[in-house]
């Protein structure tokens, strides 16, 4: 499997405020009744974007200036709760290719990385600065993974990311299946030993 080397992500960004945004909110459970992931994008954040009559509430994600945004910005503990990969898949099919937040729940972080969606952690102050600059300039963001920098206008913000995830994205090894398959002889050996 040849995977894309994700060295940077460029695009417009949109800020969805709030802490502890859980995966039920990203994709409510009732939309998980599906046997494929395609088509989940339209249900992203459904219950804050639409009322019960399915009428648009003009949520920030649906405002014209945020059309085609490919970078999502949010608060702390983003993606907590259920392990459903439907959440990052919905965000992916909605069009997001990177997420910037104060912190991420672990299972969600791993699920995103496996799909090649970098999850960038920034302090609250840096997020505020980024969001303010966005509001003033409405310009594109560049996430430079190799140099661990977010660039917008003349502003450069450094960020941290666990090395394992960073390396796997930059080197195009974010989907671990190929690496796991390579070691099947060793898997078989250990299986025999453990089955004793």
């Amino acid at each position: 499997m040849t995977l894309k080397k994700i060295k940077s992500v460029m695009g417009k960004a949109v800020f969805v405020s709030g802490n502890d945004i859980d995966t039920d909110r990203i994709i409510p459970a009732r939309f998980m009744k599906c046997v494929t992931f395609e088509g989940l994008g339209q249900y992203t954040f459904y219950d804050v974007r639409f009322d019960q009559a399915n009428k648009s509430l003009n949520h920030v994600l649906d405002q014209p200036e945020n059309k085609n945004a490919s970078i999502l910005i949010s608060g702390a503990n983003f993606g907590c709760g259920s392990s459903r990969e439907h959440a990052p898949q919905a965000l992916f099919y909605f069009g997001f290719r990177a997420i910037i937040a104060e912190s991420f729940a672990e299972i969600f972080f791993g699920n995103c990385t496996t799909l090649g969606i970098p999850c960038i952690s920034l302090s609250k102050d840096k997020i505020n600065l980024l969001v303010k600059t966005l509001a003033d300039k409405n310009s594109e963001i560049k996430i430079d993974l190799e140099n661990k920098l977010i660039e917008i206008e003349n502003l450069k913000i450094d960020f941290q990311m666990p090395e394992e995830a960073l390396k796997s994205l930059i080197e195009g090894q974010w989907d671990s299946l190929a690496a796991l398959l390579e070691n099947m002889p060793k898997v078989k050996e250990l299986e025999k030993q453990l089955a004793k």
Partner: protein
Amino acid sequence: MSKNLFNKIWDSHKIASLNSGQDQIFIDLHLIHEVTSPQAFGMLRALGLKIAYPQRTFATVDHIIPTSTLKRPYQDSLAEAMIVAIKENCEEFNIKYFSPEEGSQGIVHVIGPEKGLTQPGTTIVCGDSHTSTHGAFGAIAFGIGTSQVRDVLATQSLALGRLKVRRININGKLAAGVYSKDVILHIIRVLGVKGGMGFAYEYGGSVIDAMSMEERMTICNMSIEGGARVGYINPDQITFDYLQGREYAPAGEKWNEAVTKWKSLASEADAEYDDIVNIQAESISPTLTWGINPGQAMSIGEKIPTLEQIKEEDQGTFEEALEYMKLEAEKPMVGLKINVAFIGSCTNGRLSDLEEVAKYVKGFKVSSNVKALIVPGSMQVKREAESKGLNKIFEEAGFEWREAGCSMCLAMNPDKLQADEICASSSNRNFKGRQGSPQGRTILMSPVMVAAAAIKGEVTDARQLFKI
């Protein structure tokens, strides 16, 4: 200093170090259900891959299954498509399926232990965050995404980063009417919903030592609500007694060998930890949530906190929580009217949970303003409860007695809240919209507290109502 159980299991299951810096870890047991597995089978087919060890994967159906009738086809055609898909996938790939056809289905985290599949010293995964439940047996058990379900099917292994281990000691003696659910809600309240990030939680101390396996499962189940992907308890005689004689547990000579091995895996007194937290049992009261995450909790005798009383890092969601819940700071939760009562889920849908409720509700009636459901965690739990006559007690008291499944914990089946109904619930998540209505409100508490709320029609201290 010696190795703790987590590191012993990790080291014995490590296949290789990967280029990414992660470890490739062997997975002993893989559990699947209908919601998070169909796409993984699709990915396997697309890649032309086979299942490496079909005998190490077990399937059931729990999330979408109706609890009022098992009649097929389901009224919900999407749910019908999902149950068809899991059956076909299991047949095609030769996976054991605990199915409604054979009456052996149940919540995946209830049936793993009751069949004896969940064993000490093993690695267990499932596309479900409450897989941490199985840690109660001294296993490393955690939830995974669907791409990882694919990885396990194809290679019986995963690429993982090692976790740190935090030992949480609960010492002392729990007061009457304080349950394991209260203990875990209290732990999450103290350490926060993000507190466990990067950690596996090892629960111990005299309170945990004295608990039954089912109580221990309730504790480990909600580890993920505290941010810890893994929660576990060292195996001991209570663990072995629970497992002996179960369908998939080792038998004959193999049993003694297994017990010897399991004993050697437990963390010893001098085991090394990355962090230690001590909590005194006497400080724990019946605990319930007032907000929109499981850490927004209080004891039944307290009042809803003010912004100033909340830790700074958690203040961000305070106003949002009160607005959503339509509650006010400095008011008690006692007396708050409820519309629905739900007893069940992988947190509290086991036989001992139902027995405890039955013990108290005899002679009482559910309030006429409340819809009250009791949903057994598995068909085996249902049959055992019925053989003890518990269903009669529940029905006489006005509870609906249902078929097994996840039901109103996440409302992927027809059991849902309507509009902004308030539900006293023995489940694990009080997220916005979690119980099926975008405005629905959830209050988490122990099963006995839910039963008391159902009877009074409002949040109440079960110890007073039932004279515990």
